[in-house]
């Protein structure tokens, strides 16, 4: 028996074999055939013969497909009109689904804001020292010192004789300069001000580095032992209303002539200075130091011939110090200039401007994470709404849109969304910039964005990232939505698209995994910071204020301060308790293995220091005021020296001295590093004065000290520092990371929840009828609530399975950087999991409760 419908359907199937035919054109052919058959039947044909005749007249499909295929390749003249239509539809969707558009754009905006901010930060960090024209050929010479029983000891400073000798001996080293850090008391018109950030350099300095001069002559500066170059900032400070060139200024009692003005050092230079002296001035005062190979105290920079190969040069110079000093245990190598700021090696006596590559990496990863989360939001919300748009897709396909056009349409939409988000993100970045600067200790300004070169670069970058984000976020929805079969969408009243639900769930899991990792990270960083701050340093840093006075007046000054109200005790030393960087390997004692070289750190103190700083004595006694050749050592030194009865033993440290006491270990460097051997001397008149004060007098102590200061030094400004504040600055990088990671974690969780919120509202919308029916059949509100929340809670639980181990592993790795670290307690993870679950549940609950208490009549009325 002939079945017309069946025959037509199988005839239509022939078209589907050819990609050239789209849904619209196949439909058109079908209608043609049906019209024809109808006419033929009206003329008296049977169904069968009518069908056969119509098909015959319609002709062969293959040549048609060939023709249509060529049509596809023709560029459509409607393209522009179509794009216009896409934009129109996009805007219409904006207006029609405001909350959806809001969730989408808001999520993307937060994501992009963070990416922009982190981008600024990272590009600044990576851009350090890039402004030097010779950057590719510039290197700093650094040391690896090897001591018995101790790990490699990397040192950034070098001996005086190194730079000239390297330049002379190795033809590849075309230029070399010493850079010694300096601080002087500036005296002008009776006023004395202490200035630090001075440097002393050799003539190659200005040829090697790109620090431009504004005025004056470099040549005459280097011809003059008492020449001085000021940066613009200092020049304006001392000579606000006249040309400083040729003016005299006293530095530590010596007259200097200003011979040049240099531009202020850029913020992104690891080398920073505010004035420059001729290194020859130093040598004139210390002629015996010119050939010194023993004492490491200044930085050596060299410039290589561009044709030279770094490894080859390194192999040649490695033993250069040993060749000039037989007892040396020091190898040297060249460190590229651009590696200094973010270098991984933790050098002793590093320059003060130093970044951490680890944090740069962490921030990049966090930025990508957050961008990914917001893109996932976009994908999830778009595909979840696909049912709503299925009809639109169906209709577009029926009227001839092919898949590529639909993909272009959806990508257009996502790119438009992203562009809106980008504009918003830029506005937010502009608003946040001041607080961001505070957070990161950087100086980004809006002016930078308008700066032609940087602004254009940034503009291109922003547009590019918007485009990529748009494509990334729109890719899946585009491919997914365009694959919808129109027949499914146009027939039925209510379409539910189950497709893609699995992937959506997976994406939610990914989002929450990332968020929980960030939460764990934040908690661990916070805990570790607290731990650092409360760690037992072995001395007390609380309620201590300190200052510097000239050595000859230090005893009198200290005695006077001791008599003031609120002062508990006063001690002096020649080192900062948290930065003891002077060290020597030349100390010997009876029983020392002569082949072993051991590095000792040392500092000089007065008889009040141990008690004032609350150092703990393990054996022996504190210094007496009358001690002249007594020393104390720390436990680590005792361990390395291998002495059984240290008290009374003699050690040759700058002369024979007797050990009178052993101190418990205390931290005299950053607590990133472990504790090293230490020897403490009594020295006459140390110039750092430490004042332990009564906490109740905290507010008055500075004023009290000021008065004493004025008595002693009427012409100089007083300067006081709080010890615990210094300590906090040492961990600025950690604190910065802690603050930033807190914000990032909050935002990541917020964006994830936003996405979850959107997904839940959508899922509930889809189940409105189901909920209505369940209610009518007697389901209780709590029962419905559980039903609605279980699905999403499960996703969060799955994400915990992944995120907690990953968080544990990566945070353990981070903690390994610290000599003192917390153990990862289970509670951190329990807490992080609880936060994630709570927030997710809270998000889901709002919608679930709303849906559960709704009157079922409203849900069912539509049928």
């Amino acid at each position, binding site marked *: 028996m002939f079945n017309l419908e069946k025959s037509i359907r199988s005839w239509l199937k022939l078209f589907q074999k050819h990609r050239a035919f789209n849904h*619209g054109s196949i439909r*058109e*052919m079908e*209608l043609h055939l049906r019209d024809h058959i109808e006419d033929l039947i009206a003329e008296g044909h049977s169904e069968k013969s009518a069908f056969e005749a119509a098909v015959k*007249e*319609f*002709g062969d499909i293959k*040549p048609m497909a060939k023709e249509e295929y060529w*049509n596809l390749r023709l560029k459509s003249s409607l393209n522009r009109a179509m794009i216009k239509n896409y934009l129109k539809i996009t805007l219409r969707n904006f207006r029609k689904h405001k909350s959806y558009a809001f969730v989408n754009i808001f999520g993307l905006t937060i994501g992009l804001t963070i990416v922009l901010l982190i981008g600024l930060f990272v590009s600044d960090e990576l851009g350090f020292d890039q402004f030097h024209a010779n950057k590719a050929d510039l290197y700093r010479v650094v040391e690896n010192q090897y001591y018995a029983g101790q790990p490699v000891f990397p040192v950034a400073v070098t001996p005086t004789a190194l730079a000239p000798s390297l330049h002379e001996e190795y033809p590849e080293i075309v230029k070399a300069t010493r850079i010694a850090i300096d601080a002087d008391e500036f005296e002008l018109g009776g006023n004395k001000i202490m200035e630090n950030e001075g440097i002393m350099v050799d003539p190659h300095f200005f040829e090697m580095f790109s620090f431009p001069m504004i005025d004056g002559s470099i040549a005459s500066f280097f011809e003059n032992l008492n020449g001085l170059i000021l940066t613009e900032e200092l020049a304006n400070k001392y000579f606000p209303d006249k040309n400083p060139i040729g003016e005299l200024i006293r530095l530590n009692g010596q007259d200097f002539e200003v011979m040049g003005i240099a531009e202020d050092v850029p913020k992104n230079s690891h080398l920073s200075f505010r004035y420059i002296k001729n290194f020859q001035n130093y040598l004139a005062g210390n002629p015996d130091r010119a050939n010194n190979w023993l004492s490491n105290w200044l930085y050596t920079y060299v410039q290589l011939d561009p044709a030279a190969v770094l490894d080859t040069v390194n192999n040649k110079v490695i033993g250069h110090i040993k060749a000039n000093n037989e007892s040396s245990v020091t190898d040297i190598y060249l460190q590229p200039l651009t590696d200094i700021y973010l270098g991984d090696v933790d050098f002793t006596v590093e320059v003060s401007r130093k970044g951490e590559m680890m944090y740069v990496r962490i921030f990049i990863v966090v930025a990508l994470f957050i961008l990914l989360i917001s893109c996932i939001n976009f994908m999830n919300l778009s595909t979840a709404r696909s049912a709503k748009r299925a009809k639109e897709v169906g209709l577009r396909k029926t*009227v001839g849109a092919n898949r590529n056009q639909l993909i272009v349409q959806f990508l257009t939409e996502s790119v438009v969304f992203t562009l809106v988000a980008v504009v918003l993100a830029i506005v937010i970045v502009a608003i946040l910039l001041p607080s961001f600067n505070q957070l990161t200790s950087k100086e980004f300004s809006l002016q930078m964005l308008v700066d032609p070169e940087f602004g254009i670069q940034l503009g291109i970058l922003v547009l590019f990232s918007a485009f990529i984000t748009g494509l990334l976020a729109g890719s899946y929805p585009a491919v997914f939505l365009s694959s919808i079969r129109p027949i499914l969408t146009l027939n039925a009243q209510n379409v539910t698209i189950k497709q893609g639900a699995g992937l959506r769930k997976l994406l939610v899991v990914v989002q929450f995994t990332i968020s929980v990792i960030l939460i764990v990270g934040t908690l661990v960083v916070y805990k570790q910071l607290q731990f650092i701050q409360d760690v037992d340093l072995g001395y007390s840093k609380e309620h201590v204020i300190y200052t510097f006075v000239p050595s000859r007046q230090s005893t009198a000054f200290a005695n006077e301060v001791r008599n003031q109200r609120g002062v508990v005790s006063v001690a002096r030393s020649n080192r900062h308790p948290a930065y003891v960087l002077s060290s020597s390997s030349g100390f010997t004692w009876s029983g020392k293995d002569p082949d072993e070289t051991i590095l000792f750190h040392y500092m000089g103190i007065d008889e009040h220091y141990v008690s004032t700083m609350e150092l703990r004595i393990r054996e022996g006694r504190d210094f007496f005021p009358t001690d002249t050749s007594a020393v104390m050592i720390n436990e680590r030194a005792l361990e390395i020296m291998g002495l059984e009865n240290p008290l009374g033993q003699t050690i040759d440290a700058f002369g024979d001295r007797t050990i009178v006491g052993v101190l418990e270990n205390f931290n005299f460097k950053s607590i990133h590093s472990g504790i090293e051997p230490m020897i403490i001397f009594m020295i006459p008149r140390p110039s750092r004065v430490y004042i332990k004060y009564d906490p109740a007098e905290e507010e008055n102590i500075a004023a009290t000290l000021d008065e004493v200061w004025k008595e002693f030094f009427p012409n100089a400004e007083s300067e006081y520092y709080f010890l615990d504040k210094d300590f906090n600055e040492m961990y600025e990088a950690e604190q910065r990371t802690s603050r930033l990671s807190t914000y990032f974690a909050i935002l990541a969780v917020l964006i994830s929840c936003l996405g979850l919120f959107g997904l839940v509202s959508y899922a509930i919308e889809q189940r409105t009828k189901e909920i209505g029916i369940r209610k009518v059949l007697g389901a209780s509100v709590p029962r419905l609530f559980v039903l609605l929340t279980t699905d999403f809670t499960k996703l969060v639980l799955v994400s915990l399975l992944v995120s907690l181990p990953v968080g544990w592993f990566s945070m353990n790795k981070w903690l390994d950087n610290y000599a003192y670290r917390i153990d990862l307690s289970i509670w951190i993870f329990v807490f992080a999991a609880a936060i994630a679950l709570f927030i997710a549940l809270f998000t889901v609950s709002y919608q679930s409760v709303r849906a559960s208490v709704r009157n079922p009549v409203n849900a069912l009325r539509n049928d």
Partner: protein
Amino acid sequence: MISKNLTAASTKPIILGILKQGNSYGYLIIKKIKELSGGKMEWSDGMLYPVLHRLEKEGSIKSKWVMEGESRPRKYYEITPSGKKVLSSEMEQWMQVNSVIERLWNPKAASN
């Protein structure tokens, strides 16, 4: 019977000509062509559609789906202003060919 080549060459002006008289859809256009040629032009119906789609892409015609009452939806084609220009240039060319042929085969009539 009119040869295949000639049929193919004349498709474009014929379709545009028909649409100039009023909007129409595929099946009706075919029917009209068959009517006008008295069945002398050999067409397979299906080959009309690629031509229509090409004309649409070129911008000579545009289409829209129309549903009226209970009847089947139809994809109606309409000639665009640029299509009208194409048609008049086609007409001119066909006229020229026609006049050449007439002068050759019917010299008297042509010289008059």
